[in-house]
């Protein structure tokens, strides 16, 4: 009898612990913060010109290679020449890496945490930026212009 009581106690404890863990996990998943791109390891490193021409050559293949179904797409390090520095509506800095001879470039948006890294950057600098890819370069017939590769959550990796 004493033995049986002990078993029930253990089972209740185990079930209780299970419910707590499942609940905690569910709560954690529901409120999970977004992936920290700067702390995520880099998947590919390229020159801006290389990824632009890869996209212009075969956009479907490139989308398959870089874009992720859940939006956690590849983390890239892109090197190139700074062609333009601007700011978006969210007060985030935007650097366009583009060679004069290229049809499109790589538009990299920073975050409130990384914005200050852009202060020291000038047009013409050769730099490397790490960030997550959102979409590729293409010629859009309706816009009648080339669209840039889009990178967000950017940070500067090197600034020669």
């Amino acid at each position, binding site marked *: 009898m004493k033995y049986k009581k002990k078993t029930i106690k253990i089972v209740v404890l185990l079930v209780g612990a299970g419910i707590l863990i499942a609940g905690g996990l569910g709560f954690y*998943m*529901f*409120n*999970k*913060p*977004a*992936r920290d791109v700067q702390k995520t390891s880099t998947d590919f490193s390229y020159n801006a010109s290389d990824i632009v021409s890869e996209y212009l050559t075969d956009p479907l293949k490139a*989308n*398959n290679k870089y*874009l*992720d*179904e*859940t*939006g*956690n*797409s590849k983390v890239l390090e892109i090197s190139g020449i700074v062609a333009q520095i*601007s*700011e*978006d*509506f*969210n007060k*985030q800095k935007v650097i366009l890496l583009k060679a004069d001879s290229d049809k499109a470039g790589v*538009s990299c*948006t920073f975050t409130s945490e990384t914005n200050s890294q852009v202060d020291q950057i000038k047009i013409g600098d050769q730099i490397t930026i790490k960030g997550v890819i*959102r*979409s*590729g370069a293409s010629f*859009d017939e*309706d*816009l*009648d*212009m080339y*669209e840039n590769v*889009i990178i*967000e959550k950017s940070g500067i990796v090197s600034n020669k």
Partner: protein
Amino acid sequence: MKKITILSIIASVVFSITSFTASAQKLVSSQTHFKFFSSTPAEDIEANNYKAVGTIETSTGDIVFSVPMQSFEFKKSLMQNHFNGKKYLDTKTNPKSKLVAKITDLSQVNFEEDGSYNVDVAGDLTINGVTNAISEKATIDVKDGKVSLMSKFNLTLNDYEIAFESGKPSKNIAKTLEITVHANY
């Protein structure tokens, strides 16, 4: 004689500059903001996107926007993952949404004069690979030669085969979303 030559050179330079300005009628956006807002008793959901590119052809009233869908940013990462997923927006297959439209009452707008102009915009909106005709109101502001566009409209998810049929998203996401567009050119 010399004076006349100089004057004519100045005149021709001025003329060529003004005629150049008049022919450069396609404006490209410098800043954009697309927001969608969904409200249900369960919760309010908002997502923001600052990476769209747009153009306005001031002579014809053509308006185009290309919106990279993975740039929509949510507070909760789980929602963002759902949004991008195959069952919903399938952003891997359709990375961009597009609006190709026209200001139907272009005579209402004077792009050369400061002011706020209410216009009707009609055209095709493609989301999730599905195209629908839309007709919405927008406001064009001209200030110190700078043009901006604002619009707020509703979008029915079912029209774009975005179906949240079961599970948590179906209860927490409204069937009709409010879309806000703001662009500086």
